[in-house]
């Protein structure tokens, strides 16, 4: 039964992709219907897979040779992420029915969205590292194709190619990890190395550990690879919600969580993971404070929150990281889709042109505020419980206290930029004459469940911890009931310190006129933040150097026959010299 469900959850979206493409762009309503049906069907099969998460099953397709056997295991970590990918995927597709109404080339859009959903499910369910890499690359391909969906817009194309190159570059870390695993064990079995890290010699394990960290950092837009995510906001907003907030960017966190038992013993690895998470959280939060594009604020916020999750893995609590992943997927998808409704309504992404929209689009304001409160980490909503669990993990012995303090400060910053964003968009006086219409039916159908989820997913804490504990023995996660977890959070001192930090952040925005002097003092920092702290300059330099060396190299192709023949003879002399000097292989 589990075997069929896995096949369906990967295969149904892919079949849907093929059919949407085949249906042709002359039948948009058919394409919308097909897309929604197949994504919802996949969501159902993924949810049906959850009960199997407690069993230690293995599903195998033998291929053999240098490619290993294609194996899948529906354990707790996998089925939960598969459910998120398909359920939020179907909500994003439903939202697209309104958002993409009247757009051209819908077949390409839906085909890539569905192709992505299937690949994401495959990524989290497989236990063959090569196959995981294959799915990883497929998600990169679909992400690139969807970011640059509007091929006529040079910014979109540039954003897509940038995302592709940066994530591919980081992905080499995962490539190296898989190759190291095969070279030392003759197979790609993830479960084997997780259960027994001693399978690999210490040096090889270290390469694998840091390779996976690099790949995860690139995929989850963490330091130092965070620059692609803000530019990826050129994608249609349902894509930003699905791929660049709720699912694909989680793949990096998933990778770190999956391999935690294998890598936690590698010297310096946990500290590196925590440092990457902390730096990402901090830098992105500062950049969010000065951003003026609504989607960019949310993009930076995603980087920052993923930083929390990565930090949590490094701190030793895979459960806290995954629980925040669940919360974040729901409330960030909600925020992005809400932002999509706003943008679709007023036709601009620039917050400086918005203001006072709350009166015109009250439903969107309501759901957006719910998401914003969760992001800030205020009590009762899911973001509060999961963020506090992460901060508690930071207190565990062996974790640097100063990093925890930075994370607490970032909580305050998060509150500040979130409230700034909500205020600039929905409250205050309108700054430009904007016509705004309320969200369409399909949009509301997508937004409502997410809002409800934001208010309720924290109730699953107990069952979730039980699922992870039973199906991931190597992770040594302790199972607690929901009540126990809630009590633990409410009684921890760090919770109250965090709430104080958040309160400070809110107060700072509320009193921003009085604090303008402090704002001016930090203006240098603000300018650096607008310039992404120099990372974009690094990107530009790399591109320029490559293009310039390529251009210089063109001069070697002179087109003159005598020069070509000279190259030939020169090569002959070089080869003869090398042979005469007796060069073997070192």
């Amino acid at each position, binding site marked *: 039964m589990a075997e069929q469900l896995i096949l369906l959850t990967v295969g149904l979206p892919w079949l849907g992709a093929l059919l949407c493409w085949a249906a042709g762009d002359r039948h948009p309503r058919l394409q919308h219907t097909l897309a929604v049906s197949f994504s919802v069907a996949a969501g159902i099969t993924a949810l049906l897979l959850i009960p199997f998460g407690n069993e230690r099953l293995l599903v195998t397709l033998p*291929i*053999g*040779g*240098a*490619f290993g056997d294609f194996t899948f295991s529906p354990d707790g970590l996998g089925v939960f992420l598969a459910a998120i990918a398909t359920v939020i995927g179907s909500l994003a597709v439903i939202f697209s029915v309104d958002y993409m109404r009247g757009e*051209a*080339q819908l077949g*390409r859009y839906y085909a890539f969205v569905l192709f992505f959903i299937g690949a994401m499910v495959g990524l989290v369910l497989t236990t063959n590292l*090569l196959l995981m890499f*294959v799915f990883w*690359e*497929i998600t*990169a*391909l679909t992400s*690139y194709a969807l970011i*640059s969906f*509007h*091929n*006529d817009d040079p910014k979109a*194309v540039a954003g*897509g*190619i940038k995302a*592709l*190159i940066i994530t*591919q*570059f980081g992905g*080499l870390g995962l490539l*190296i990890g898989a*190759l*190291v695993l*095969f*070279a030392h064990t003759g197979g790609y079995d993830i479960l084997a190395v997780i259960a027994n890290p001693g399978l690999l010699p210490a040096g090889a394990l270290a390469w694998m550990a840091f390779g996976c960290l690099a790949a995860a950092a690139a995929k989850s837009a963490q330091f130092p690879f965070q620059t692609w995510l803000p530019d990826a906001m050129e994608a249609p907003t349902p894509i930003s919600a699905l791929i660049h907030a709720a699912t694909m960017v989680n793949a990096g966190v998933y990778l770190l969580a999956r391999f935690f038992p294998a890598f936690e013993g590698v010297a310096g690895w946990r500290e590196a993971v925590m440092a990457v998470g902390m730096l990402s959280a901090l830098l992105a939060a500062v950049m969010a404070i000065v951003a003026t594009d609504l989607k960019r604020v949310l993009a930076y916020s995603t980087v920052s929150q993923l930083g929390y999750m990565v930090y949590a893995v490094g701190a030793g609590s895979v459960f806290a990281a995954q629980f925040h992943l669940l919360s974040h997927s729901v409330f960030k998808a909600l925020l992005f889709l809400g932002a999509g409704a706003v943008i679709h309504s007023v036709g601009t992404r620039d917050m400086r042109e918005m203001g006072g929209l709350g009166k015109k689009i009250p439903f969107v304001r309501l759901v957006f505020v719910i998401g914003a409160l969760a992001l800030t980490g205020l009590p009762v909503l899911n973001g509060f419980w999961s963020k506090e669990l992460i901060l508690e993990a930071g207190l565990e012995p062996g974790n640097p206290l100063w990093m925890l303090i930075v994370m607490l400060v970032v909580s305050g910053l998060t509150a500040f930029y979130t409230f700034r964003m909500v205020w600039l968009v929905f409250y205050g006086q309108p700054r430009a004459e904007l016509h705004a219409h309320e969200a369409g039916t399909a949009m509301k159908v997508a937004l409502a469940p997410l809002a409800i989820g934001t208010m309720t997913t924290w109730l699953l804490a107990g069952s979730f911890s039980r699922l992870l504990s039973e199906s991931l023995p190597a992770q040594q996660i302790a199972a607690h009931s929901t009540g126990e977890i809630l009590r633990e959070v409410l009684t921890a001192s760090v919770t109250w310190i965090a709430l104080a930090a958040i309160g400070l952040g809110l107060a700072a925005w509320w009193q921003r006129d009085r604090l303008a002097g402090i704002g001016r003092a930090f203006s240098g920092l603000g300018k650096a933040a607008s310039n992404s702290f120099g990372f974009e300059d690094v990107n530009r330099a790399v591109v320029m150097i*490559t*293009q310039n*060396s*390529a*251009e210089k*190299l*063109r001069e070697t*192709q002179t*087109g003159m*026959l005598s*020069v*070509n*023949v000279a*190259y*030939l003879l*020169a*090569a*002959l002399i070089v*080869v*003869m010299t*090398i*042979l*005469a000097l*007796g*060069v*073997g*292989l*070192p």
Partner: protein
Amino acid sequence: MNANDAFLLTLGLPVVASPVIYLIGRIATRKYPKVDLARWLALLTLLVDGYFLFIVGTEFIQTRHELLIAVGAISLRLDGIALLLAVAVLALGTLVTLFSGPAIARDSGRETYFALLTAMIGTIIGLGAADDLFNLWVWFEAMALCSYVLVAFYRNEAAALEAGVKYLVQSALGTVLVLLAIGLVFANTGSLDLEEIRIAAQPSGLMLAAGALFIIGFGVKAALVPLHTWLPDAHSQAPSGISAMLSGVVIEAGLVAMLRALGALHLVTVSWGALLLGFAAVNMLVGNLMALRQTQVKRLLAYSSLSHMGYILLGVGAGAVLGSENSAAGGFFHILTHAMMKGLAFLAAGALLYSLHQALGNHDPLVVDDLNGASRKYPLTAFAFSVAVLGLGGLPPLAGFMSKWQIFVGGFQTGNAWMIALVVFAALNSVLSLGYYAPLVNRLYRRQPASIVEQGKPIPVLMSVPMVILSLGVVVLGLWPSLADWLTGPAAQSLLMLFGG
């Protein structure tokens, strides 16, 4: 039918049929100008040849015995490498023949084209099976001669003639170097038979020189950097079907000839493989950097062939010097997948070149701006081109990813630090190549077509059929890479035996 007879027929049929195709084609064009008899005869020849190869192949796969035949003093041996090359050249050649029908329908000299294409296919099969140095040289030269004329097919275009002449001169210099090497080997060992040379060749200065001459001599044809300078012109000026053949099989045939010759000298030094690895690194980098700035589509694809040659060299080099079976199998797998993907890319580019330029009577090259919005009018061709190009960039679930992966696996398995560094370098190059492949796909799928696209003519069905077949092949091999094991496995083993002793 006896497998040995089938082997003889596989070799002999295309070569013997070639002048017949020419004569009948020539006569037919006078009497029946509408029917392109040469093309259909060539197609028939290749299909029949495929049947003979099928008999040979099944015999070889089942018995794992190399087939040996001798015609007078000519001895030929079919091993894994020969079989792989034969399958690749026949499959791609048949599709190219089908494609070329409409592509050159308006040009004169069609019977020459099809006759020489058939002959070239036959000579490449013979090259793969050659068992002594003289034989090897004859088949190699015959292949080269056919290809010179095919490259300069558009003999009224100055650029095509220039490309042909440069190719001829550089290739001829390479051939002279090979002859010198053969002379040195003969003087030293007293034999031309590859098996006898394997035993008799001893390390000495003259034999090292012979090896160097083999590498450079065959290396011109195999497009090693810096011997590659003929390639961008030849591949971009030739008719698109010939470009596909050149990139897909001819340069690989040059590499196979080099491997045969170096294998015979394997006792002389272990450095042959190391040299190939060195060339691999240079090829990958130079190919990618030069392709990055190209605005002409066929030149871009030509430069990318350099870098893919680099991957192939990486695989076979590691097999030769470090005995890595997966690397060798990966290298041969990449020969297959590259033939499919680069062939597909050139055919798709050729289809667009036909419909946007040639059918309208002009001889301008296809530039990247011509691709803008082409998917609106030519969805099949655009899709085929995207599949080809993204596969070349190494993205799953396409075939290029799987063949590169196998090469990388083999490299890591050797445990050699330099080899591992080389694999990482190759992976970085793969990422770099996306920098020029991906923008092409973006251009194809713009909503606003270029004005030249709006005025383009439709693409004939016979051009689309090969594109569909190749696209399917690229996707299927990407999803089930082990489907090619029956070809790449024996080839890898043959290579290891060649260099391992």
